[in-house]
């Protein structure tokens, strides 16, 4: 049923070597995305989800370093190909949209110039054709009066409009994979709803694979096909969206779902304690200090992510104990 993944990440590790010590921002992360599917990468601030995105595109700068791993896209390992080839791949085959669109747009060029530039530099089309395509994209992203918008500068746009312009820019190159890092976090919910609906439609129409990075479980539930939950630099649970929301297995995922306010929900059960500092992470499970189900065995070595059911994996010692039948399959 499932098709071959378009992007495959294996054992990716990115550390930051600071004066205070080593920060293991991404620690042996593996996942894959199929064409036309949306993977929700969820976690709280500092869990390593943005660093994962930057590592995939090899955009890590010192003191950060990609230690190991493979990023397979179209038969190439992006971590191994020469820089010249990497530049070709970025944008055309894999694109990234950041949370803050103001810093990603050139302040002295009009929206139209920047969009057309992007299209012309990646495809053999005339400038007029590029502009026509840009207008069409802006229109499809629900931007009012796109013709006028083309003549404006980034500072004249609201946050929601800039975010959609960035999205248009990324999509204009028809990448196979789009990574969107908190694309709607700073926006109003009514604007968010429009952008998410548009993103979903484009994904279906173009068969694009999307990695949507967010801390918002509501957004994930509304958008994702597959979900990966990150905690302290590692994926602690992975599965289909229904598995994650209906049968969450990892204690962190379960606790997170209980702690989110929902309309009409009576009681919130908070997660105790604080998110971990990534500096000098313990050798055991990073969630241990906050885990309501912690046991002596959890003080041992850090649990590996392993299959616990069809299309469902979790990194927890307790799960292998409580459902040995499922956990023993690997």
């Amino acid at each position, binding site marked *: 049923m499932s098709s071959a993944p378009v992007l495959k990440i294996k054992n990716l590790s990115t550390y930051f070597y600071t004066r205070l010590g080593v920060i293991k921002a991404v620690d042996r992360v593996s996942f894959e995305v199929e064409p036309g599917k949306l993977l929700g990468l969820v976690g709280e601030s500092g869990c390593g989800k943005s660093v994962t995105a930057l590592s995939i595109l090899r955009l890590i700068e010192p003191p950060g370093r990609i230690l190991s791993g493979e990023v397979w896209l179209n038969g190439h390992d992006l971590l191994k190909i020469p820089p010249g080839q990497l530049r070709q791949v970025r944008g055309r085959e894999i694109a990234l949209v950041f949370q803050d669109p103001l810093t990603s747009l050139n302040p002295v060029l009009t929206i139209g110039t920047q969009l057309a530039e992007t299209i012309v530099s990646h495809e053999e089309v005339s400038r007029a054709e590029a502009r026509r395509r840009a207008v069409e994209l802006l229109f499809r992203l629900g931007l009012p009066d796109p013709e006028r918008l083309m003549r404006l500068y980034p500072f004249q746009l609201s946050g929601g409009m800039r975010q959609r312009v960035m999205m248009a820019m990324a999509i204009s190159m028809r990448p196979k994979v789009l990574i969107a890092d908190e694309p709607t976090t700073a926006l109003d*919910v009514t604007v968010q709803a429009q952008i*998410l*609906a548009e993103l979903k439609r484009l994904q279906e129409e173009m068969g694009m694979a999307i990695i949507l990075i967010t*801390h918002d479980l509501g957004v994930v*539930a*509304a958008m994702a096909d597959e979900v990966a939950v990150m905690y302290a630099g590692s994926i602690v649970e992975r599965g289909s*969206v229904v598995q994650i929301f209906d049968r969450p297995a990892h204690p962190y995922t379960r606790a997170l779902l209980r*702690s989110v306010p929902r309309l*009409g929900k009576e009681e919130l059960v908070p997660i105790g304690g604080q*998110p971990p500092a990534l500096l000098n992470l313990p050798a055991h499970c990073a969630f241990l200090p906050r885990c309501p189900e912690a046991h002596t065995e959890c003080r041992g070595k850090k649990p590996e992510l392993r299959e616990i059911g069809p299309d469902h994996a979790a990194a927890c010692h307790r799960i292998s104990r409580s459902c040995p039948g499922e956990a023993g399959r690997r």
Partner: protein
Amino acid sequence: MTLLEVRELVKHYAGKRGIFAGHREKVRAVDGVTFALARGETLGLVGESGCGKSTLGRLVVRLEEPTAGKILLAGEEITGWTGRKLRELRRRFQIIFQDSSSSLNPRRTVGAIIEEPLANFGVAKRERQERVAELLTLVGLEPGDAWKYPHEFSGGQRQRINIARALALQPELVVCDEPVSSLDVSIRAQILNLLRGLKRRLNLSYLFISHDLAAVNYLADRVAVMYLGKIVEILPAEGLVSQARHPYSRALLRAVPEPDPRQRTGRKPVVRGETPDPARPPAGCRFHPRCPEARDVCRQDEPVLKEVGEGHLLRCHFS
């Protein structure tokens, strides 16, 4: 018993000079807001950015002067209070902001920060220290934390410190302006539950301002929905999902993604576009350019806020 009453409150700012136009525009941040808040009640104030909810919160605690309108505390008008009387008001009204770090002085110990309002109101040194220990315990920190500095705490703990300071003078009303928005998801519930527990224990009243409908719904007794400087609907919180009738309230409710993948079928966005510039609000009903149900009358006449049910006020020609 009514604690706070706000009548036709207005706040206009002189806006920036337009980029193309030469004249100064008036930004109508709050444009005729009326509501009442009972003692021990939590009124949730929801709306999107630029709707004027934060300005309203700052007006209520007299951090800003209203352009017009009245604020009454237990029936007495406080809008004109100055000097000693305004100082007294500072004891009775407190505000907690979104950014838990920038509201704490990094060079002072947590004890000194919480003690300051007590010292300002002439509480003796020994008593102050006892109160600080008490307050820290009240918000779930340790009395020993008084000797630490703000940077030694996480965002959630810093918000607890802000809450402790706000409660130091035993206020009657606490305005909470997006108190959990900058916190991590796993920490938000801790602070929401803390605020709820404190309200019950101390019989506090809250004006709880947030863009997060679910958080507001969790804490509030009544919810007021704001759009472009005006309240478009007020209703009891338990009826928010089923009873809200204003097209904007309904659009907001539908736009909030529920953490349940089974609910996503057919949840298409109902409104398009963005909130217009509050310097140039549309004529007639302010929501009409985005309203799926707008008719001619909506473009011309501005609807008034009228009662449509028990504790339910609505500003709409239809619905």
